[in-house]
């Protein structure tokens, strides 16, 4: 149509014509993100290759009041990278250069389309790594990590993405190009870098990010312990925390999640366990040697019926494989599922899990649990069949009750997956009108025309077609799995 071709024409002048897609086949590939229940077809997808092109596109959007959604790999689990129908998608995957890797300052400067794991691979040559490790790390981008302040299995000790971003160059939704922070681990003046992290694409597009790198730990000590009940595993976590140890990771999986993982990757977890706990210590060998004795004593005093220590890197990888594959594995148990990532105070984990169990029994909806126990970050996987009438709606309703429970316990509706499209209705449960009003004023400072990823994070009217679509295409293909 004329309007379409005019848009195409304008964008083609900003990037090469063969990097503007308006045809159905290409657009279909961008219709949803990792939360496939939402779909929306954008007017066009632009694929810039340089930051100058990104800036030109954003300025054009600003000038013409055309909404845009920045997109990395589209693995968001909350509908964060869901396109806007009247807008365009700016696909950043080709901005995938690691611009600098400096072992003296221990930083990497990267473009937004760089894959998370690639940073650690490149830094590994200097004995360094990038700590945030979402399970999607073989595919998700730094731009997406920054926008969502993504986490992983090591947040208690090392924090989330924001804690590892020192500076950035970005184009704001106004077209202004800014530089925040720098290569120092310290800053002066208000921390704009920190504010930009977790802004869910509502402020603009990150063009270059300066990342903090850490020295690789000398060694890991990974323990897998089986329990007869979820509560006992939870008590073990409390015992570890109260001992004064600071493990790199503290993860729990329940029976349903174990069953799925076992079927998918044969991880060989203790048979008949109602829950398994993974504890990982890391650091200099002497320190780990002393701490492992302490950990053994603590775990011996818990009710674990079996516990194993990874003897080498391979065994460690096997333990983690079960954990990291849990989500996509659960997909085998059910045609569809949704993942929540609410947070509760850690001391109330046991209670939260019991209540989730009760809600599951009450509604007859199966829920598998895999979670970052050290952070109190739940990941209930709510199983349903989208072909059943009302199946999705019932699952969503249960998900909503779980989020409300998290808020009522003093926790959060999201630990790492972001609010996005999915949880925007729950933001007011956590924040007052005044709190949200300030966030809106902040948003207006960055994006007065509301063109950057509009419709997300803040409660809004309609959401695009809610339909059950099963696993992300890449998950089906076995390329990625979720945590």
């Amino acid at each position, binding site marked *: 149509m004329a309007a379409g071709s005019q848009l195409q024409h304008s964008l083609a002048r900003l990037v090469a014509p063969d990097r503007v897609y308006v045809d159905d086949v290409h657009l279909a590939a961008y219709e949803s993100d990792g939360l496939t229940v939402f779909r929306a077809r954008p007017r066009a997808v632009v694929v810039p290759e340089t930051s100058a092109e990104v800036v030109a596109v954003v300025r054009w959007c600003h000038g013409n009041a055309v909404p845009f959604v920045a997109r990395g790999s589209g693995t968001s689990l909350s509908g964060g990278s869901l396109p806007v129908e009247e807008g365009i998608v700016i696909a950043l995957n080709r901005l995938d250069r690691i611009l600098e890797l400096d072992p003296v300052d221990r930083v990497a400067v990267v473009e937004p389309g760089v894959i998370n794991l690639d940073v650690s691979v490149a830094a590994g040559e200097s004995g360094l790594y990038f700590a945030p490790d979402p399970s999607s790390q073989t595919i998700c981008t730094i731009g997406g990590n920054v926008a969502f302040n993504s986490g992983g299995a090591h947040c208690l000790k090392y924090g989330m993405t924001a*804690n590892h971003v020192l500076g950035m160059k970005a184009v704001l939704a106004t077209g202004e190009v800014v530089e925040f922070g720098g290569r120092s681990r310290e800053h002066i*003046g208000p921390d704009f870098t920190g504010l930009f992290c977790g802004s869910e694409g509502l402020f603009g597009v990150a063009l270059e990010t300066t990342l903090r790198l850490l020295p690789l730990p000398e060694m890991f000590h990974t323990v897998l312990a089986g329990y007869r009940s979820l509560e006992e595993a939870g008590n073990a976590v409390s015992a570890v925390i109260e001992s004064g140890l600071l493990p790199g990771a503290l993860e729990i999986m329940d029976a349903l999640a174990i069953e799925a993982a076992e079927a998918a990757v044969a991880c060989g977890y203790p048979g008949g366990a109602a829950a398994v706990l993974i504890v990982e210590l890391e650091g200099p060998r002497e320190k780990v040697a*002393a701490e492992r004795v302490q950990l053994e004593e603590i775990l011996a005093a818990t009710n674990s019926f079996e516990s194993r220590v990874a003897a080498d890197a391979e065994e460690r990888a096997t333990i983690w494989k079960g954990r990291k594959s849990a989500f996509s594995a659960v997909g085998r148990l059910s045609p569809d599922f949704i993942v929540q990532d609410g947070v509760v105070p850690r001391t109330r984990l046991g209670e939260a899990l019991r209540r989730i169990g009760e809600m599951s029994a009450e509604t007859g909806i199966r829920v598998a649990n895999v979670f970052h126990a050290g952070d109190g970050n739940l990941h209930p996987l709510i199983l349903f069949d989208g072909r059943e009438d009302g199946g999705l709606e019932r699952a969503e309703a249960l998900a909503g009750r779980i989020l409300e429970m998290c808020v009522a316990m003093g926790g*959060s509706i999201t630990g790492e997956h972001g609010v996005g499209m999915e949880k925007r209705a729950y933001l007011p449960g956590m924040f007052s009108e005044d709190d949200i009003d*300030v966030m809106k004023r902040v948003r207006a400072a*960055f994006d007065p025309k509301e063109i950057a990823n509009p419709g997300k994070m803040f409660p809004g009217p309609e959401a695009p077609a809610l339909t059950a679509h099963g696993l992300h295409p890449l998950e089906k293909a076995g390329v990625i799995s979720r945590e």
Partner: protein
Amino acid sequence: MAGRPTSAEEVAEAVRAHRQVRVRGAGTKGRLVDGPGELLEMSGLRGIEEYEASEYTFTARAGTPVREIEEALAEKGQYLPFDPMFAGAGATLGGSVAAGFSGPGRFRYGGMRDFLLGVQLVDGRGTLVRSGGKVVKNAAGFDLPKFMVGSLGRMGILTEVCFKVFPRPRRTRTLRIAAPAPAAAVERLVRVAASRWEADALDYVPREAALYLRLGAPGEALDSLAAEIEAEWPGEVAVLDDEAERACWLSSREMTWANGGRRVKVPVSPSRMAALQELVDGLDGCEARFASGGAVAWLSVAASLDALRDGLARAGLIGLLFAGPADDPLWLGKRSEPAILADMKQALDPDGRFPAI
């Protein structure tokens, strides 16, 4: 005359009642308080509201002295790993967040920005607002708590803060490594930072031509790590006794070494340390101590600022002057002032009640 609110609501009222307002915690970073308008003393908002050791979090009112918090945490074997600055001099939590200062322990696990989880603040319209949360992990809404780190009382008045805390290492040991020239110091510092040793703190003290490195670990591990470090630079490493260790980190945190009337914080990184030290060496009455593995330089300035200001600008560095006469500039060196800075100021403080930034 200063007002002394005793509740967040009273702070909000005071903001609404005055055309211009500024706040003072304990005044340990006095230059940041200077400015026009009604002065609010935050000492009336004092005390811990929630502290659940097994949650690794606490919430306290913004005027609470850091020292009081540290004592409460120590009772449970916990601490704020970044060694907040000027705690000994009475620094308050709110003032520490607003200044955005972290001490030597920032090296290992990160600083103020990395441990602050949530805030309650009064914005420039006198509205009470919350942002962030009270759990160790939370991604809901914009991260205004981080934005408040370094906001210098210009974007809002903090009334309550929530922090993540960590278990304190059972034992610590501090080693002194000789560092004859800045270039050698940087080389050794980089070696330590990249090593397997996992130092908790790492400072460079040019005056003493030495690096100080703090290890935290169970006792047996400390012996072995220290022995390896001593073997790395034979004859150039000394182990501090408890008293000297305490004094070393106290000096870093309190800047007791500084004798100039002006104090400046300069964010830097290892690759630019030597150049900054050279600049400082060339200035009369100027002295530096590098903390947090070279992430920050604390400067003491006895003489005029002009040469320092020019030097920093040439080096592409910026400094924040936090102690000194009221007519001294706040910012030294090359500062970028993007439009978004003014837009954010407008968003949070539309009537300009707080001092200009």
